């Protein structure tokens, strides 16, 4: 390990030592009086801390530090009080001095980590962690505690570092081992994650909820290494160990979806719904998979149930629209999309989706479609898809010249989409422009001839 000495700590100590001397008034107390006063101040400050009177606690600890400038506990107390009162700069000085006076104590360092975090000073935080690693390499509980703090504050890289230190130092308890497994799975150390997670999963003496979480992490890590059957087995074990963990059903269903085993996804989500009837998280994947397995009406009912409980779920509206489209119910499709538009007016291309649904109605209300497309154009004035539908609608209204103009513009915007060429050919035919119709069809064949080549981005 790199044995770098923290320059910051040394500089801080210097500032700190000179600072305290300047703030202390001259003392006229006898040693006995000073000891009594110190005891009083300490008791008062502790009581003030309990009552969250941090400014008062700082005042008393400061007086105490003047009486006992070499007392690490007093300086530690002062640092904690200063941190609690929001004076992080002062807290950092007090804690650094406490650490210097009693280097065998881990508390000032642990508190310094928190203070540096509160100051947003990540480089100093890292320096403190390196200091802790150098001086307390075998203190597993210190590193596990730091890891927990760092996870809570979403500093996952540093949390991983401290979790690894905790594991190296003492093997770690089940909780810290689980935390490490989750972090390892997140960063891609799947073999490590599997080893740690399976180790926890197999500890029969642990609460089943903890073992279930471990089995879940193992399942996800196995999936990431391409061992899907192992992944499924561990996620099933997670469900067996704790049938009330919603995440296990969701994760297993997700794996089934990836494997395109939509029926299995439906089964596991329905099992989850039986065990957790109040869960809303299960409803979207359940509804979506019911639609995928062509159980349209059941899917619509589940999604409708979700929207009753949680109406701000755009995907639920879209899945329902999908189900209506696949069952040839364009009015209902447009209706549910309008509900989404009312709920989220800025949902991307919502008016294009509504217009498309309306065009599928028989008979279609073409003026209403054009109104809807005007709304779509307000948010996306140069969208080839909107222009294509407008061209199609104009054609249906026998407004062929306007149709040709917007279809030409759609092609300009997205020259590698075959659909507008075909529509344009039909329009040119209606206009009696046979050569142009033939040319448009020829270009459509050119585009289609490229197979799965991606579309180019046209020039605006």
């Amino acid at each position, binding site marked *: *390990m*790199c*044995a*770098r000495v923290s320059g910051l700590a040394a500089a801080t100590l210097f500032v700190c030592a000179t600072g305290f001397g300047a703030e202390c008034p001259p003392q006229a107390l006898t040693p006995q009086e000073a000891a009594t006063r110190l005891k009083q101040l300490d008791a008062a400050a502790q009581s003030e801390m309990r009552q969250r009177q941090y400014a008062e606690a700082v005042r008393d600890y400061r007086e105490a530090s003047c009486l006992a400038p070499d007392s690490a506990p007093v300086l530690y107390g002062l640092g904690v009080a200063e941190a609690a009162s929001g004076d992080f700069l002062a807290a950092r000085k007090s804690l650094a001095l406490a650490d210097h006076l009693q280097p065998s104590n881990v508390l000032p360092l642990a508190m310094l980590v928190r203070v540096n975090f509160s100051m947003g000073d990540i*480089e100093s935080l*890292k320096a403190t962690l*390196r200091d802790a*690693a150098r001086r307390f390499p075998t203190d597993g509980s210190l590193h596990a505690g730091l890891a927990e703090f760092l996870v809570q504050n979403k500093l996952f*890289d*540093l949390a*991983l*570092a*401290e979790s*690894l*230190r905790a*594991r*190296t130092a003492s093997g770690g308890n089940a909780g810290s081992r689980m935390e490490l497994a*989750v*972090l*390892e*799975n*997140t*960063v*891609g*150390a*799947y*073999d*490590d*994650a599997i080893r740690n997670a399976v180790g926890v999963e197999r500890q029969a003496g642990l609460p089943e909820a903890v073992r279930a979480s471990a089995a*879940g*992490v193992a399942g*996800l890590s196995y*999936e*990431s*290494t*391409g061992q899907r059957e192992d992944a499924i087995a561990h996620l099933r074990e997670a469900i067996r160990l704790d049938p009330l963990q919603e*995440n296990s059903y*969701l*994760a297993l269903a*997700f794996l089934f979806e990836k494997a395109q085993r939509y029926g299995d996804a439906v089964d596991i989500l329905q099992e989850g719904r039986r065990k957790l009837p109040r869960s809303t*998280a299960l409803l*979207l*994947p359940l509804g979506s998979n019911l639609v995928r397995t062509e159980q349209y009406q059941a899917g619509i009912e589940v999604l409708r149930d979700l929207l009753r409980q949680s109406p701000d779920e755009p995907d639920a509206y879209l899945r329902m629209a999908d189900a209506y489209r696949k069952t040839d119910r364009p009015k209902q499709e447009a209706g549910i999309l309008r509900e989404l538009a009312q709920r989220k007016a800025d949902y991307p291309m919502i008016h294009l989706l509504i217009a498309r649904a309306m065009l599928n109605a028989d008979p279609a209300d073409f003026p209403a479609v054009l109104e809807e497309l005007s709304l779509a154009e307000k948010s996306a004035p140069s969208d080839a898809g909107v222009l294509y539908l407008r061209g199609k609608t104009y054609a249906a209204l026998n407004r062929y010249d306007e149709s040709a103009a917007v279809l030409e513009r759609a*092609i*300009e915007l997205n*020259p*590698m989409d075959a659909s507008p*060429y075909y529509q344009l050919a039909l329009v040119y035919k209606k206009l009696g422009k046979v050569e142009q119709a033939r040319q448009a069809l020829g*270009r*459509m064949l*050119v*585009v289609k*001839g*490229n197979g799965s*080549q*991606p579309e*180019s*981005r*046209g*020039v605006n």
Partner: protein
Amino acid sequence: MTRRQLFLLSGAGAILPSALSASEAQNLAYPLREIQGTLTSPDLFFVRDHFSEPQLSLETWQLRIEGRVAHPYQLGFSDLLELPSKKVEAVLECSGNAANGSAASNGIWEGVPISYLLEPAGIDREAAFIAFEGADTGRLFQNSPSLAYAQLVPLEKCLDASSLVAFKLNDLYLPRRNGFPARALFPGWYAMDSVKWVRRIMVLNSGDRQCGFYQSGMDRVYNRVVRTDDGPRITRLSAIQVKSVIAWPSDKMNLPAGRHLVWGFAWSGGGAIREVAVSIDGGRTWNPAQVQTSTDRFRWARWSYAWNPSPGDYVMMSRATDSQGSQQPVQRDKTRKDIYELNWCAPLQCNVR
């Protein structure tokens, strides 16, 4: 909790094909046209292995710093994460990438400057090179011993503030196939020096020969060989030569007549890209392309060219110039006798109907 939240929390977001480990050396590249913006996503990053990917554990991974140093030491992954780190956006290109090839990628790398790692070791005054050794092992040639992949990099390049031991790519930990948990990174240089799965940094004097780089035969590859009247002149590859490629359209593609946006990327180890020109007549005439310029010298630039062709057959090329004035050659230098630095303007056929 939504499923998205669940998978972000539990790390299932990392379930990518790229995460899968391989038992054999991999050689992967993806069409550049699939890149959105300027960053190559980790699942589209090219891969060139010499040996099979090693299976490394975060809990046991160590990086040793030794050789001509006063204080050899080793550090673990925790130490690396807790050291001051920096981010550098840089292209990596395989030195054997074809003129129109896609074995080049651009990403934001995060890691610890190598100079910072060397400082506490106290390098010898006579130090001239550093050998970087990966955890992947094998035989480079049939008759060479099975050794770790190793490269030798001049000390000056190692001490550049942008040279890193990197552990992240685009804010995600390195995919296993791109060097997880840590790799060397030398922005502006061909990728073979950015040793993946790095586990050893060995400081060498100019006369030192006792390292895997020589023993494996690595000194016999990745060399520029130029024919001269006095015989072949051999020099080591280093900085990436200025280059541009057309990402769209692809070769032999049929296009409908109309307006199209031709686009691609350009990069150079010698400096930021200053301009890109496009030819649609096989290099007879050149037209300026729009370049998303940047002062960041190691990243690539995305360029585009608005083209409105009539029906016909076209031969397209792109040509980049960097801030140092280096320009892509239209043809391969005929004196070159090696298979590297293939940076000439590759022609691409396009049929417009």
